[in-house]
């Protein structure tokens, strides 16, 4: 069955109904209605997710696995059901390929340590892009230092796109891994991951995708993409904080050593030796974040009902509209002008520092993010200290974009 067909098309995208699903959107900030445009940092939660967390702690709380009592059986079932929902959402082959983590950063650290210990040796090379979030740079740097591995970086253009030819030139017999961001959190660029994966696989090089900014905007089918691992966070897709996913192909995960040791990840322990549990438990040491995993399952249900393609279409319209409106202001320069972008609008204003922009907008009720967005190399690339970033979600409206633009006009007036 065609996955995107199940997800969408026939549905009506009812923005008013969606907005009422998110109680926090009624908040008044400094006397103005909240205009929440900081969705790339975290998304708000629909009532069903909030309710699920309350329901869990009210009626189901118990530790999972091994328990033989009533509550433990319920919580185990809910937890494993959530795993199955995530497996279906990204179309993984099996639940064994879905590992619960704390979030994208945790997932990438798991990947770096397990892959690094299991597969990398001195002299090997790893390729990343020039637009990675720090969480897809630092874990690799740590393992690179430990194992004497070289980290190579695909350069990016002024528009914020990777230079593919440079990537092709970088690949050699020492290249053992490619780890790239699917959608850039500071530029909005959607990278050509299909092409990157196809090219890498020609040389039998596995590819890891940082999908922290992709999972909530794009229809992701890991089998179709053929990526070897994929990381994302629950809180960026309308789920709770503190829960994330590392998807990995079963064969690859079986070849890797555990990340952390402890309870739940073992089959048999003696003081002489330990045999490890099967997948995915081998990578889930200790008591998992049970409630938030279940909450993430509910968030996935919610997103699936609305339809990721419908969400993407709505957000695409908002991004186009915001780009057009902001381009009307000659004092503003948009940072990140890739052909294919997703929901992120980063910009700088002549002679006004992003932090002043952030404080001003707050008083208009507008929440945006200002700073380096954990992508300092990107800021260095464009020779700027920081940007202001508006990022859109399914519940944002064109009226909110107008509020943003009108507030920006006011700031420009005050500062000049």
């Amino acid at each position, binding site marked *: 069955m065609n996955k995107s067909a199940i997800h969408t098309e026939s549905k009506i995208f009812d923005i008013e109904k969606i907005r009422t699903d998110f109680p926090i959107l009624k908040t008044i900030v*400094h006397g103005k209605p909240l205009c929440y445009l900081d969705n790339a940092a975290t998304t708000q939660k629909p009532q069903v997710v909030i309710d699920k967390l309350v329901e869990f702690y009210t009626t189901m709380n118990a530790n999972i696995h091994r328990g033989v009592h009533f509550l433990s059986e319920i919580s185990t079932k809910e937890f494993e059901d959530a795993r199955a929902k995530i497996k279906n959402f990204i179309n993984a082959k099996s639940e064994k390929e879905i590992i619960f983590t704390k979030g994208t950063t945790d997932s990438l650290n798991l990947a770096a340590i397990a892959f690094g210990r299991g597969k990398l040796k001195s002299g090997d090379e790893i390729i990343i892009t020039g637009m990675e979030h720090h969480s897809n740079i630092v874990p690799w740097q740590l393992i690179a230092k430990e194992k004497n591995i070289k980290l190579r970086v695909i350069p990016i253009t002024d528009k914020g796109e990777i230079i593919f030819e440079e990537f092709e030139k970088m690949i050699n017999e020492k290249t053992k891994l490619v780890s790239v961001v699917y959608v850039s959190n500071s530029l909005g660029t959607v990278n050509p991951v299909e092409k990157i994966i196809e090219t890498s696989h020609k040389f039998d090089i596995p590819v890891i995708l940082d999908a922290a900014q992709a999972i909530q905007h794009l229809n992701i089918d890991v089998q179709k993409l053929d990526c070897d691992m994929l990381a994302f966070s629950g809180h960026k897709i309308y789920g709770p904080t503190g829960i994330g996913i590392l998807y990995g192909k079963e064969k690859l995960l079986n070849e890797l050593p555990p990340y952390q040791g402890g309870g739940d990840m073992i089959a048999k322990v003696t003081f002489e030796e330990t045999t490890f549990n099967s997948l995915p438990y081998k990578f889930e040491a200790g008591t998992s974040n049970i409630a938030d995993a279940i909450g993430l399952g509910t968030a996935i249900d919610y997103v699936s009902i609305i339809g990721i393609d419908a969400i993407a279409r709505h957000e695409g319209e908002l991004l186009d509209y915001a780009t057009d409106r902001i381009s009307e202001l000659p004092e503003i320069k948009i940072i990140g002008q890739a052909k294919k972008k997703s929901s992120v609008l980063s910009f700088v204003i002549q*002679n*006004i*520092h*992003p*932090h*002043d922009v952030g*404080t*001003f907008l707050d*008083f208009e009720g507008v929440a945006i993010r*200002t*700073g*380096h967005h954990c992508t*300092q190399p990107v*800021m260095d690339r464009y020779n700027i*200290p*920081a940007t202001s970033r508006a990022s859109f979600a399914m519940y944002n409206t064109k009226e909110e974009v107008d509020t943003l633009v009108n507030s920006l006009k*006011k700031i420009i007036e*005050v*500062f000049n």
Partner: protein
Amino acid sequence: MDAELRELYQQVILDHNKSPRNFKKLDNANHSAEGYNPLCGDKINLYLIMEDDVVKDVSFQGSGCAISKASASLMSSIIKGMKKEEVEKLFEKFHDLVTGKLTDEKEIEELGKLAVFAGVRDFPARVKCASLAWHTLISALKDGKSVVSTEE
């Protein structure tokens, strides 16, 4: 504009942001320091000419928000001619002002032009912006050359 916001961004601050005073490098500086706020990327290079423990000349360069730039600019225009101990005392008062510890109206008035930073106390996230230049100054006074960070 909202009253609280206007209190933060007073006209004096906006003016100093737009045309900062002493915004240059002093080639013959005998003290200097670099200040950095890793959380927001604000950077300042401070240059001092000290003669017998007196600030003979001061200048700065760098990038930052209006609050941090205006703070550096106003600071540079006030401390010229002051003794080292006077500068250090002034910094203590200034710090108390922006963190809301200094509430006595008369004492605030004694700070002169620096009193425009009183509005910062309502914006805890911006205290570091206002004090970066001062931390850098104190560091430059102590050592010949050094680097300070707001996160240490």
